């Protein structure tokens, strides 16, 4: 028992967990044909069968059942405000499976030049009353029952009265903002709190204008829109849901990382001495001491950032995103690649923080400008 727990605790440490997930992710949700071939070869598409689904469900269930015997895990899971997250995990897993199963199913139909499962004769329609109205009614009744049972069974959380001078430890945002709160650890507030949320909203809105692929309307499909689906899955499952899970289960007092079965020790010591890039350059590498001029001090970070956003896009356009560039054209490609680069800056910065304790790439606290 304890051995399993300690293994899971070790696996849950951010560097290992994140690396594992990022490495395997695009084999499960292949980005291009190369990944797709490996996906087939490794038989990873067997997730999306009935048997695979049941297996996944059992694994999740066993994990939570096993976890409930652990005191520390129980404390987190049974906290009233965390109940929706456990529900969310199961629901997201189920619906990901459901959509992918239908998508893979349709892919086979399309390959065989058959009609997709959703296809029906346009002249052969059903009446809204009663066919749809009754389904809606049943859904509403079930939803109401669920809500009432949930409300009777679990009291809504209410903590001590507000005290502006005493932050609870850990102080967590509402669970659906835990992804944002996690970002706030790695980025300055103006990036994590203002720029990234705005970019997320804009990016989501831009999806229909960037995805010029005409195929795949009105039915579940994967192979026809491989890249779009996989990128969306990455943003949604890894950069949003996973960060929420990390924020809920792995962040403890003083916002330290804890394994899911680890005791939340208030005094867990985690040396987190963070160093700015300019300090790395001038103090550790050049050992000259920091220059007084702000621009001179931060020039390396600024160059790095400019390079990231100005050199990488044309470089990609010439190399492995050539086809995409030709398909999307100049403007669409630029918007697309900038959004992707912003999304990728998130895991990049996280790794830099974990590996080399990098704090800011550009640090100008005098003007509240830190990147």
């Amino acid at each position, binding site marked *: 028992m304890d051995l399993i727990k300690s293994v899971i605790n070790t696996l849950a440490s951010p560097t290992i967990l994140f690396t594992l997930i990022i490495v395997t992710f695009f084999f499960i949700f292949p980005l291009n044909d190369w990944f797709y071939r490996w996906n087939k070869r490794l038989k990873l598409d067997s997730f999306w069968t009935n048997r695979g689904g049941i297996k996944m469900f059992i694994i999740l269930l066993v994990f939570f059942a096993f976890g409930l015997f652990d005191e520390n895990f129980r404390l987190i899971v049974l906290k009233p405000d965390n109940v929706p997250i456990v529900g969310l995990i199961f629901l997201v897993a189920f619906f990901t499976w459901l959509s992918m199963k239908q998508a893979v199913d349709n892919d086979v139909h399309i390959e065989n030049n058959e009609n997709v499962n959703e296809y029906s004769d346009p002249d052969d329609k059903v009446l809204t*009353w009663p066919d749809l109205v009754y389904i809606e009614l049943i859904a509403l009744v079930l939803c109401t029952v669920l*809500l009432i049972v949930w409300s*009777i069974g679990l009291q809504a959380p209410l903590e001590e009265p*507000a005290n502006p001078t005493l932050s609870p430890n850990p102080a967590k*945002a509402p669970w659906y903002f835990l992804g944002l709160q996690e970002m706030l650890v790695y980025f300055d507030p103006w990036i994590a709190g203002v720029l990234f949320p705005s970019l997320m909203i804009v990016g989501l809105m831009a999806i229909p204008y960037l995805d010029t692929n005409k195929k795949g309307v009105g039915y579940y499909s994967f192979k026809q829109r491989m890249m779009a689906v996989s990128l969306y899955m990455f943003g949604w499952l890894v950069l949003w849901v996973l960060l929420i899970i990390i924020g809920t289960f792995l962040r403890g007092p003083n916002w330290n990382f804890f394994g899911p079965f680890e005791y939340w020790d208030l005094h867990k010591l985690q040396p987190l001495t963070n160093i700015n890039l300019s300090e790395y350059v001038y103090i550790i590498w050049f050992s000259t001491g920091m220059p007084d001029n702000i621009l001179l001090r931060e020039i390396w970070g600024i160059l790095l950032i400019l390079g990231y956003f100005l050199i990488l896009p044309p470089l990609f356009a010439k190399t492995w995103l050539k086809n995409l560039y030709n398909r999307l054209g100049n403007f669409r490609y630029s918007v697309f690649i900038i959004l992707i680069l912003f999304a990728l800056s998130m895991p990049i910065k996280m790794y830099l923080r974990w590996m080399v304790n990098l704090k800011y790439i550009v640090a100008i606290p005098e003007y509240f400008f830190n990147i």
Partner: protein
Amino acid sequence: MSKSEKKKKESILLRLGNSQVWKSIIRSGVPRDRRGRMLSVLNSVFLHLHPVRMPKHAVKLKYTWCMGGLSFYIFLVLTITGILLMFYYRPTIEYAYTDMIDLREQVPLGIMREIHRWGAHLMVITVWLHMFRVFMTGSYKSPREFNWVVGVMLLTLTLLLSFTGYLLPWDQLAIWAITVGTNMARATPFLGHEGPGAALLSIGDINLVHAGSDVRFALLGGRFVGEAALLRFYVLHCIGLPFIIVIFMAVHFWRIRKDGGISTPL
């Protein structure tokens, strides 16, 4: 029941269905045949959100997951329970917290707050899943691009509604979540007094953007999360944001029909 009795009973129902009162309310009478069923959808202000007939896959749970409809339904539930809660809740530092306890202990059927709170969580989840479904079926593609944009707005507004509601119990959870949330506003470029660029906006020595004049101040009505902030969030939560979200919802539903109804394979 004998045959004649059955016939008699039916005819009472039929007469009821043909009576002036019934017909004045529901024009098309009891939907018994194809025509009646079509009319019942067409003539009802609520049901005519739907088309009269739809492709077969559109009524399959496997395809739609019913998440959009459930989101709307939960919104209605939240509106109703929210109105009920407003009868007891006073948005002041003095009373907010005690009113919460009263809602649980002194008010009969004291699960209204629970339904409201859990419903809010559930709505966030259903809205996410609805978006997920729409993405996976490619339903955002032409000609439905704009409706997807409206949908993203609705998602944002849902989160904002949930966020503003979070402060109202005035407990530890509430004020710290809101402190953290609004401090991000403080860091807005040019508009927040600790954001990049704010220091550049000044006339002589006087800073134009300071703690008393930035976006955070506009949100909180003060420099701290206090009485004014509670009132502002209360008004936003109960009137401001619902007003906006209803407008967007109307556009969203209207556009579903105008953009060709539920997405279908060609």
